[in-house]
């Protein structure tokens, strides 16, 4: 899992998104189901399908609970990788452990 705020809300640059779905606190179940379905379709093992859905859930739940309360998930294939991007337009909480908090943009994004 990695994050790259410098890319902001940019659309996936490699390959078209196979899933582009908005979510909020009441639709996390549907989001997990959609991510799992596409991960399975991409050929991932049963365990990896679960792992991807779980990671997507944690990111989305974080956006719901600590961000804007809603957000958007994009999933796309990049070569042999399956990439997942979760974004929301909520304020980023300041993290003093980061070396340069001012560099973080208002919009946040986390990839897994």
């Amino acid at each position, binding site marked *: 899992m990695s994050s790259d705020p410098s890319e902001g809300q940019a659309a996936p640059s490699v390959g078209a998104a196979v899933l582009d779905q908005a979510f909020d606190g009441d639709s996390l179940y549907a989001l997990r189901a959609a991510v799992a379905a596409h991960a399975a379709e991409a050929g991932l093992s049963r*365990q990896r399908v679960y792992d991807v859905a779980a990671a997507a859930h*944690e990111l989305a739940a974080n956006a719901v609970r600590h961000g804007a309360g809603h957000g958007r998930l994009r999933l796309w294939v990049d070569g042999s990788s399956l990439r997942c991007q979760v974004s929301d337009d909520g304020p980023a909480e300041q993290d003093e452990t980061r070396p340069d908090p001012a560099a973080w943009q208002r919009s946040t994004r986390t990839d897994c």
Partner: protein
Amino acid sequence: MTGNQLAARRPARLTSALPGDLPDAAALAGTTASVLCQYDRDRFDPVTLASVAAFHTRSVATATYHADAVLRICRQYAPPGVRIAGEIDYKAEEPLTLALPEAVRLDGDITVNMAVLAFIDAFCARMFADTAKMLADSRTVILQCKPEVAAGFARPRQTARGEAGDRP
């Protein structure tokens, strides 16, 4: 008193076996009796259950902490603990806060039956871990779940609780 256990897991025989198995309700009228029904209603379809409802004049519902289309949390009596089915995430904090302490108050080990649980998030996994830490050393929390779900328990601290630090 018990019913005939032979047919307990065979839906096809339920309608023929059940009437003869049960004690006569009229004969027990006005008395105190304990009856253990060994039929698992989860194994029978609604139509079959409805067809034998007339013979089953009493029903006992297990304590249910939460039940909707996605998640069901209820008490498990044997082995003692909690049964969770469906998918569970942080939104189930309230019913889990009821269910887990009640399980702790029971004697012996606590079994969390998640055999048919399809998903658990880090928040809930951490709630189980916190419950286990509350127990005396002589007691154990036993988690029964699918392998892919079990893997999630290895990393609850990485993302659990959603503290400020886990947000970029």
